[in-house]
């Protein structure tokens, strides 16, 4: 191949990648801007929630008090709401509190779910919450809905997942275009005076390339998070179904026939020493098993505290049935989560996350500006890039 032919294909490739970069970016930019803006307060979710909606004051008690009996808390909840059934128990590992969640029936809409907060050490009722559907929309709740599903549940999640996929295409095509753009440029120099467009271009290139590794990781893990619902569904339809196969046809345990939830908790604690049980899903719950208590437990190391293991405890006899092995795709999902949230390295990491987020916003806006300015001078833009390539070819 002669040099001019070589340059022609190079130029054609660049044109193609440029087309990918422009269209993938244009389609996803507005949604990405929204995701970056709503993500900003979500980084500080805990701090904002604690301030706007402070938890009730805890009694001051000596450290190391054992946990109060779960059966008593459940009993008290049932006495307050005799028509409802318990759907799950959540054991907070940050604060000494236990939430008992109830619903009119296991098939009821999740908006009817309501929770009772107990002090984990004394078993005293601290707060009786309204059903989810009657609670006032909180600021963080609004940000969360906009950030994850646009108030549309699974379709919204899949749509934003598709936007994340386009964003990844924009990042990779941008990376490929960075080389030809920077052939005649020193790293990070922002050309001034000559034209507004060059200034935006240099800013876009500098911020884009410097933050690329972060945006790739956060974009990629964001995409995986949006796939959480289908991935858990896949697991329930395959592995979980297999596990429950030999129970088929057995009568379903009714809530009043269930064995002690405290005993189920103790059974799991004994089977998994060194692990913390964080929630107990009641038999019949859509997210559990019809015949078992399902208990989620996590480890105590930086990495293992991200990995949850489910155990199944027979609902009537309280015998341990299985410590379930999670499939690799759900393990990957669990490890990916913190990499999206930035909540795993203290306050400094959260601030760093916010600064990267702001940089990403600047990259998005500068990209939009470039598209707007370039519409006028598209031809001169191509000839400049091709000129770069040709000049380079003759030098070699």
């Amino acid at each position, binding site marked *: 191949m002669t040099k001019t032919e070589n340059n022609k294909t190079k130029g054609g490739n660049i044109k193609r990648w440029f087309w990918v970069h422009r269209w993938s970016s244009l389609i996803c930019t507005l949604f990405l801007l929204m995701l970056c803006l709503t993500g900003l307060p979500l980084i500080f979710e805990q701090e904002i929630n604690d301030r706007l909606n402070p938890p009730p004051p805890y009694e001051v008690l000596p450290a190391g008090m054992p946990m109060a009996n779960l059966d008593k808390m459940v009993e008290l909840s049932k006495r307050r709401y005799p028509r409802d059934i318990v759907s799950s128990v959540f054991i907070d590992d940050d604060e000494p509190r236990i939430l008992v969640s109830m619903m009119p029936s296991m098939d009821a809409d999740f908006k009817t779910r309501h929770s009772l907060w107990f002090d984990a050490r004394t078993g005293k009722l601290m707060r009786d919450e309204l059903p989810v559907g009657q609670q006032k929309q909180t600021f963080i709740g609004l940000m969360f809905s906009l950030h994850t599903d646009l108030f549309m549940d699974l379709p919204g999640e899949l749509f934003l997942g598709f936007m994340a996929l386009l964003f990844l295409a924009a990042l990779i095509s941008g990376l490929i275009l960075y080389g030809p753009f920077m052939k005649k440029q020193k790293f990070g120099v*922002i050309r*001034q005076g000559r034209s507004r467009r060059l200034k935006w271009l240099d800013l876009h290139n500098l911020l884009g390339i*410097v*933050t690329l590794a972060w945006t790739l990781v956060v974009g990629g893990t964001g995409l995986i998070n949006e796939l959480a619902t289908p991935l858990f569904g896949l697991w329930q339809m395959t592995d979980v179904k297999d596990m429950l196969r030999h129970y088929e046809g057995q009568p379903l345990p009714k809530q009043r026939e269930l064995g002690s939830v405290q005993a189920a908790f103790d059974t799991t604690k004994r089977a998994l020493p060194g692990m913390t049980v964080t929630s107990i899903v009641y038999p019949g719950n859509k997210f559990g098993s019809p015949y078992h208590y399902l208990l989620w437990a996590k480890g105590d190391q930086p990495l293992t505290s991200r990995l949850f293991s489910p155990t199944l405890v027979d609902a009537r006899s309280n015998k341990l049935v299985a410590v379930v092995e999670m499939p690799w795709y759900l393990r990957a999902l669990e490890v990916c989560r913190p990499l999206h949230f930035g909540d795993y*390295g203290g306050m400094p*990491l959260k601030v760093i996350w916010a600064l*990267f987020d702001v940089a990403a916003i600047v990259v998005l806006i500068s990209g939009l500006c470039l598209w707007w300015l370039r519409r006028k001078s598209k031809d001169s833009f191509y000839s400049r890039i091709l000129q770069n390539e040709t000049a380079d070819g003759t030098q*070699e």
Partner: protein
Amino acid sequence: MARKSNFRRVWGIPLSISCSILFGLLSALLGAGVWHFLSWISLSIPLVIIAWKLRHLAHTGAKRRTIQ
């Protein structure tokens, strides 16, 4: 030879920065204590580079305005 050095000129800094970011993201995830500290440092490097380049920009912009 010329080609190789050109590659290094264009990609050297971006690759180093990306390695620093990946190290920072993973060290806080897999370690505790001093690893968190190392994570903050290595993730701050790209932010400091951006701040340094942009401060330069704001500075020259202001100078030009005063001359005009």
